[in-house]
């Protein structure tokens, strides 16, 4: 009886898109593994098959379970992250895996779901008002706890994902200036790297003066404008200082190449250049499945993980890329649509978190592969090779699908 109601109420659209993405991902991993003579595609197939019992467990657990135990799940997740400092295995300079036999597990992939649950749980309390400063601090603390544990591993890619929670908080009432501050910070950062800091400060001054005199007389506040100008100048100068003096050379290189200030096709720019070549060589319809010369030649590094989209671009062309991007966009918008119709605040916030996390991964990954974002290790959800990633995203998504199915039940 119960099972049947689940199958009736479950959102099949999301599941079908999910399944399509996983299958397409596996086909591309299969193609890219032809060059390396590795058994990555076999392993990934096992991971995919194992998601089926995982999904069944998630769906059959009582709907109230996640809300009830959110804090405990979050706590356990934080412990697994902290444990890495003692028991973690270092791969390619990053200490973010637990080794169990020949398999490795990356706890940060599961921490995103746990953090989402914790944040949803915290915000679901009707007493919480994000206009209050101490509430804001508490909410941000939930986000920053895992970030503080992930950053030193070092895994800046995973840490970057957590910035999207700001948008979730904004949806739930966080003042707009947080978002504006974030946005202006990014713009100033990029401008400072592109231009001389003096010019950026001049631009900032011009904007402030225009805004100051355009606003109504009553709203004009010379002190606020001056403080704003001081902040901008300070930020720009410190970015310049940090970039030149505190950043490591390879970080600087990544930004410089991205911004077109330096060209280095054999060294640090190799990854991006090769992935652009692979995608660019696809044309309208691509070279066909298993026909990608770049893929076969193994020119793109990490092609089965972070650079899996290059295989799509090369072998399936613009059309294939369009299909994959469209599938992601549909899934994301569908999740937001479902989140907005949730009856409880808990499941709505959680749904938003899911959409936000998937969106950040999707955008940062493809943008990086296409050469419009700095090289940073972020997998493409459901596509990239790796058991932890696949299961992490599956858990993240299916907890929400379960909540959504439950909601109709309750009603």
């Amino acid at each position, binding site marked *: 009886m119960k099972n049947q109601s689940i199958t009736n109420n479950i959102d099949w659209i999301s599941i079908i898109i999910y399944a399509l993405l996983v299958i397409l991902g596996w086909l591309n991993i299969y193609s890219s593994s032809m060059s390396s003579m590795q058994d990555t595609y076999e392993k990934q197939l096992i991971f995919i098959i194992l998601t089926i019992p995982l999904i069944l467990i998630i769906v059959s657990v009582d709907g109230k379970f996640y809300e009830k135990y959110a804090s405990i799940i979050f706590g356990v997740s934080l412990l697994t992250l902290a444990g890495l400092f003692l028991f973690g295995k270092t791969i390619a300079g990053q200490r973010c895996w637990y080794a169990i036999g020949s398999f490795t597990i990356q706890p940060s992939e599961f921490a995103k779901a746990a953090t989402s649950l914790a944040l949803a749980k915290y915000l679901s309390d009707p007493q919480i008002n994000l206009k209050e400063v101490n509430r804001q601090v508490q909410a941000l603390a939930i986000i920053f706890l895992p970030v503080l544990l992930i950053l030193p591993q070092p895994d800046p890619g995973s840490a970057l994902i957590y910035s999207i929670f700001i*948008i979730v908080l904004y949806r739930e009432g966080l003042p707009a200036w947080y978002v504006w501050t974030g946005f202006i910070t990014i713009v100033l950062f990029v401008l400072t790297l592109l231009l001389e800091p003096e010019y950026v400060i001049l631009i900032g001054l011009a904007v402030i003066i225009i805004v100051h005199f355009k606003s109504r007389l009553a709203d004009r506040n010379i002190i606020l404008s001056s403080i704003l100008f001081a902040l901008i100048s300070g930020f720009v100068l410190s970015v310049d200082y940090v970039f030149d003096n505190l950043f490591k050379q390879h970080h600087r290189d990544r930004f410089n190449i991205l911004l077109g200030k330096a060209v280095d096709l054999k060294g640090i720019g190799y990854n991006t250049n090769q992935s652009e070549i692979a995608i660019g060589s696809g044309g309208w319809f691509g070279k066909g499945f298993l026909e990608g010369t*770049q893929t076969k030649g193994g020119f793109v590094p990490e092609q089965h993980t972070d650079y899996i989209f290059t295989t799509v671009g090369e072998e399936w062309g613009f059309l294939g890329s369009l299909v994959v991007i469209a599938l992601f966009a549909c899934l994301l918008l569908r999740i937001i649509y479902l989140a907005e119709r949730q009856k409880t605040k808990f499941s709505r916030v959680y749904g938003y978190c899911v959409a936000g996390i998937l*969106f950040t991964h999707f955008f940062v990954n493809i943008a990086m592969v296409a050469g419009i974002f700095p090289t940073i290790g972020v997998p493409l959800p459901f596509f990239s090779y790796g058991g932890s990633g696949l299961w992490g995203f599956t858990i993240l998504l299916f907890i929400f699908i379960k909540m959504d199915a439950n909601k109709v039940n309750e009603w």
Partner: protein
Amino acid sequence: MRKALLPSLIIIATFLLIMRIFYLQIVDDTLKLQSENNAIKKKFEYPERGYIYDRKGKLLVANQASYDIMVIPRELKNTDTLEFCQLLDLSKEEFIKRIKKAKIYSPRLPSVFLSQLNKSEFAAFQEKIRKYEGFYVQKRSLRDYEVAFGANVFGGITQVNEKLVQKNPYYNSGDLIGRQGVEESYEDILRGVKGVKYIQKDKYNREIGAYKEGKYDTIAVQGEDINLTIDAELQKYGEELMINKRGGIVAIEPATGEILALVTAPSYDPGILVGRQRSKNYTQLYHDSIAKPLYDRGLLAEYPPGSPFKILTGLVALQEGMIDENLTVSCNHGFSYARGRFMRCHCSGGSLQLHRAIYESCNSYFATAYMKTINKYTKPAQAVDIWSNHIKSFGLGQYMGYDLPTGKRGNIPDSKTYKRIYPNGGWRSTTIISNSIGQGEVLMTPIQLANMMATVANEGHYYTPHIIKKIQGREIDEKFTTKHVTTIDKKHFKPMISGLFDVYNLGTARALKVEGIDICGKTGTAENFAKIGGKRIQLKDHSIFVAFAPKDNPKIAIAIMVENGGFGSTIAGPIASLMIEKYLRQKVTRLDLETRILATSLQGEYAKLGGLSEKIKLQLKIADSLLNKRAIPAVRIKTDTSKVKKQVI
């Protein structure tokens, strides 16, 4: 508003990504090309170059195999260095140096260890090659010259330059391409089409098999053989006669425009530019800026033609009705054409008509004829343009459109020329009178002179000179079989030809008569100057001669120019009559004349132009080698069966 932020971000981001991917995949096509270089290696199969034959089917240029010994340093295993060096005649130090160089290039990839070994050098090594792991042999095809002459006609083969590689997608860096001569102008036909094998590479540049099972691979197409219009015997004879002289000879068959001989001197044995010595020899030839052995004087040297130009002056005056056969002009060893202006003349003087004016080459007569032509119209500008158009209808003052890669326009002045020289006007027929006798602004190349004679022989028409006779059973370009008719009526050529005929009977070439062959000809001399040590000094005149024969039904028209050879009748004239006899009778009867010309050396005169440097010495050495080769038959007998088979075709 708050609800809309994340969906808007998603939509904007999706749009941004699609735009970027669209740019990479559709708009920016440089990436596509890069990917081909990256992952697919093209291996080329080079076809054998087509052979070159002369007009009678005599093989001139064939191919020879040459062997490059290649090495892959990583695969070297227990080489018996001593034996290896002995086989290839190398020192141990040289061996070590070359291996080191290959290693620096790449330990994994093949590089050339020893290049361009010939068959005998390679034979000993061949039996043992299996013993030497890491070495293998790459066969290349190089030119094998069957004759020691014709270097300027054939041109040569060289590595393609980077500029062309960028421009022409057929060529890749390191490919060979025809340079100069017919190797260049018939490159597309001679080279064939190379075959391509596509091979999939991995990121270490290792080959991992055929790309798409060889679906796109193509087979090499053999180069086609060509027959030149050159008569090998005549060409060889011409080059021999020009030894120790500088200048050019061009012989044309009037009825077809076929180039029978194209001689430039000094020249060199084309064989010295093949094989291991090529680059050393080429550098020496290239840097000889005084004798310029790489400069084809037959095609490129522009000179004031001198007296032979009087033929055209006369023809134009006849056509314009300003003279006829009976017009009498009196010559008093010169012609006073304006107050205080006097043009000297070497003819025997007295009153003369067109006929004697030609065979005695009277300056006064043709200056008068030219003045009449220009003064026919009230405006000299109009008159000069009419005159100029007549002359240009002989193919002069412009590129002739022949099938050799180099050429010069020459110069036939018109009103624009004089507007440039005299911007304020005031020029008249007397100002430009030097044109009448082939001086002044008139410039012609030897091939233009030869074509002029061919046109006169044909009584008013010519075919564009060309050097291609046959391309393996294909028709030659239509433009070489199209008749060009001059603006001079046919009837005016008759008196001109009879005058030219008497040049041999009564005129300047009396001594050069060949018994039994009616030759029509004209001598010429051209003054020339050189700057030596900052001073302009007059050198010995260039010796010029133009002729065609036989008078009725002409078979050969010829122009000869010998730099600093003196009077036309001293060197150029004898060469012309020897060449004509050789061509029409296949043998020369006047051996004393032949010996005198062969022994004539103008090197002393040329030494004035520049110190007798290493360059000149080299040129003398080359000339000597040509003289020595005279004893050797032009076609060496080859036992190579593949060549015999080809010759049968």
